[in-house]
């Protein structure tokens, strides 16, 4: 099954808007999460201080990322962890593949991880007949259906329980049910069998502590604990931006992340893992794959660097009016919503994803809810500018001559009081002509979902002058 990419964003979005089941589910889900988040942060009196602190920690760390990565590596290795470095997706997949081969692993399980989605690890491992079984319930559903996640936190947000029930009938041969309790019980039973025989477990990483070489994994279901406990080899894929300086900093991020994501004060489980722990019933080997895949380039770009402060909570998705309407698939990339609109063009190149920074009304809701205060609207504007102007490595990806002429004309008309008055006069006259409110040509698309505002009968300027005379 092929999936639309970011190149066809406009068409993807139109398709999504025509799907009533999807739009209904999205509205319910994003509303629910937004409400829960509001409730959860109301109980934290120092919420704004906490955001500020997290932002400062991230800004500091990213500006010294080389130093903190070296410190993380040294301490993780001292604890017995094996560190691997991957410049890009292909290298990261090859490392995991080799680890599976070396350890003789045939049966792989995996817990939810955006980084592994980003590098398309499952497809790479499938080529040697080692496709991991996804064990997060939502991810497992998506895998059974041959689809891709549509939300960072709730991957199957676009699927109804009836559709999932039918999927389980088709793929697992169980009696039909649309009761989430029943469906989850089947999942528990089926995935137990996979956990019991798995010889390699793959996870993501939420935070890596430089000072101790510790990785932290958050979850609710217990599948990440199973994945990182039962198999004899654990491979964790970690974006290089996930490192934080101090063990105590985890407190700050643990107070922010679950509240922003699901509105929980804490997710059910946190696993803090420092080295392999065979004596403590854990795996014999712990491997961490440090993934660059474009991140070092973003870190070196002083304007865009804060993109890497993202802790993947999903709050900006739930708050975004565009995401609320079209969902994650329309973005055609692993990272959807406002964060995806800034991250995707930087990771995969402006050419394929130039439409994404324009997929925003710049309302600023994303910035307001971001737990690490990433200024997403400003970064969207910067990326739009770069898309239009082009950069040394990537020439202009957008902005035709017509559009540029139009803006230039607009700037000229608005550039002096006399010209402005004439423009307004013409507009008032134009309003009286029937059909003139419909634009023609390329502006028609803009108007298909917008009403042209009605001008006041009398302008403020003439009212002002009338009052004074």
């Amino acid at each position, binding site marked *: 099954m092929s999936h639309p990419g970011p190149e066809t964003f406009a068409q993807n979005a139109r398709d999504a808007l025509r799907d009533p089941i999807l739009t209904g589910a999205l509205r319910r889900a994003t509303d629910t999460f937004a409400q829960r988040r509001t409730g959860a942060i109301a109980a934290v009196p120092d919420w704004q201080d906490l955001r500020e602190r997290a932002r400062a920690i991230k800004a500091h760390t990213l500006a010294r990322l080389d130093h903190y990565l070296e410190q993380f590596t040294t301490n993780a290795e001292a604890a017995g962890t094996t560190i691997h470095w991957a410049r890009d997706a292909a290298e990261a997949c090859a490392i995991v593949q080799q680890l599976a081969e070396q350890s003789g692993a045939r049966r792989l399980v995996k817990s939810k991880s955006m980084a592994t989605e980003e590098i398309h690890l499952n497809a790479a491992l499938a080529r040697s007949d080692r496709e991991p079984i996804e064990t997060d319930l939502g991810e497992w559903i998506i895998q059974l259906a041959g689809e891709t996640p549509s939300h960072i936190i709730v991957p199957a947000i676009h699927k109804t329980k009836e559709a999932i029930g039918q999927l389980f009938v088709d793929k697992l041969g169980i009696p039909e049910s649309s009761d989430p309790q029943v469906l989850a019980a089947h999942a528990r039973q089926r995935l137990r069998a996979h956990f019991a025989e798995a010889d390699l477990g793959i996870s993501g990483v939420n935070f890596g502590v430089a000072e101790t070489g510790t990785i932290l994994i958050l979850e609710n279901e*217990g599948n990440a604990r199973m994945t990182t406990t039962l198999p004899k080899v654990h491979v964790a894929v970690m974006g290089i931006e996930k490192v934080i300086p101090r063990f*105590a900093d985890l407190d700050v991020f643990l107070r922010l992340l679950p509240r922003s994501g699901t509105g929980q004060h*804490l997710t059910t489980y946190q*696993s803090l893992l420092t080295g392999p722990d065979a004596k403590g*019933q854990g795996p014999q080997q712990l491997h961490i794959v440090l993934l660059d895949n474009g991140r070092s380039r973003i870190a070196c770009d002083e304007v865009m660097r804060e993109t890497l402060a993202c802790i993947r909570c999903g709050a900006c998705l739930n708050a975004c009016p565009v995401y609320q309407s079209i969902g994650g698939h329309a973005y055609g990339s692993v990272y959807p919503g406002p964060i995806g609109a800034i991250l995707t063009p930087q990771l995969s190149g402006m050419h394929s994803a130039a439409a994404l920074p324009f997929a925003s009304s710049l309302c600023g809701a994303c910035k307001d809810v971001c737990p690490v205060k990433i200024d997403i609207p400003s970064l969207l504007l910067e990326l739009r500018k770069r898309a239009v102007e082009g950069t040394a490595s990537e020439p202009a990806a957008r902005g035709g001559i017509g559009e540029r002429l139009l803006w230039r004309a607009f700037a000229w008309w608005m550039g002096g009081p006399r010209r402005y008055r004439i423009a307004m006069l013409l507009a008032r006259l134009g309003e009286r002509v029937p059909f003139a409110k419909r634009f023609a040509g390329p502006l028609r698309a803009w108007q298909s979902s917008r009403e042209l505002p009605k001008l006041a009968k009398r302008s403020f300027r003439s009212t002002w002058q009338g009052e004074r005379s």
Partner: protein
Amino acid sequence: MTSARDQILGTLRKGLRGTTQPPLPAAQSPRTLPVAERAERFAAVLTKVFGHVERVADLRAAGERTAAILAAANASSLALSDAPELREVAAALPSDLRQLPHDAPRQDLLAADAGLTMAQWGIAETGTLVLESAREQHRLASLLPALHVVILPCSRLLGTLAEAMVRLQLDGAPSSRTITFISGPSRTADIELELVVGVHGPKLLHVLLVDGC
């Protein structure tokens, strides 16, 4: 050929040279909660996320309550951690209950009806149990069975997450290779955001807060 490590670090070193480096915020002294409020707060928060919390007088009483909880759940096998305190608790359990030590065969542990562990710390503010692998082999007994009974001495209740992070760091290093935080039974809302309690981990979580130990 340059290694991936050298290339990534080299790119960063070169690109970050001369960049403005905002300071790392200074460490804060951890927030806390008065000792007298902790037990009540812990129970209230954990109950809200579907955990069960009871107070008992001592380990012997904890054993009696554990027996009752296991009986109510029709549990016939129990996976135990290697915590020494559990010997006193286990002494109160019925003789027909099959007790599986921490090093029992994996297949038996996977099939166990219930698990029994201690917790090294509790965090009142978040209703969280903290289990350290260096103190207790807890990973399987606290995860695999559908019912998890936890013994937590009242004296080990901390106020906040920040306090726990301080206690869990000894001479700079984490206290254990594995530290597990548990706040309630396993849960998911992956199907239409409808809450289901008990997916991969335990469906029932019983915490016995012990006063006299």
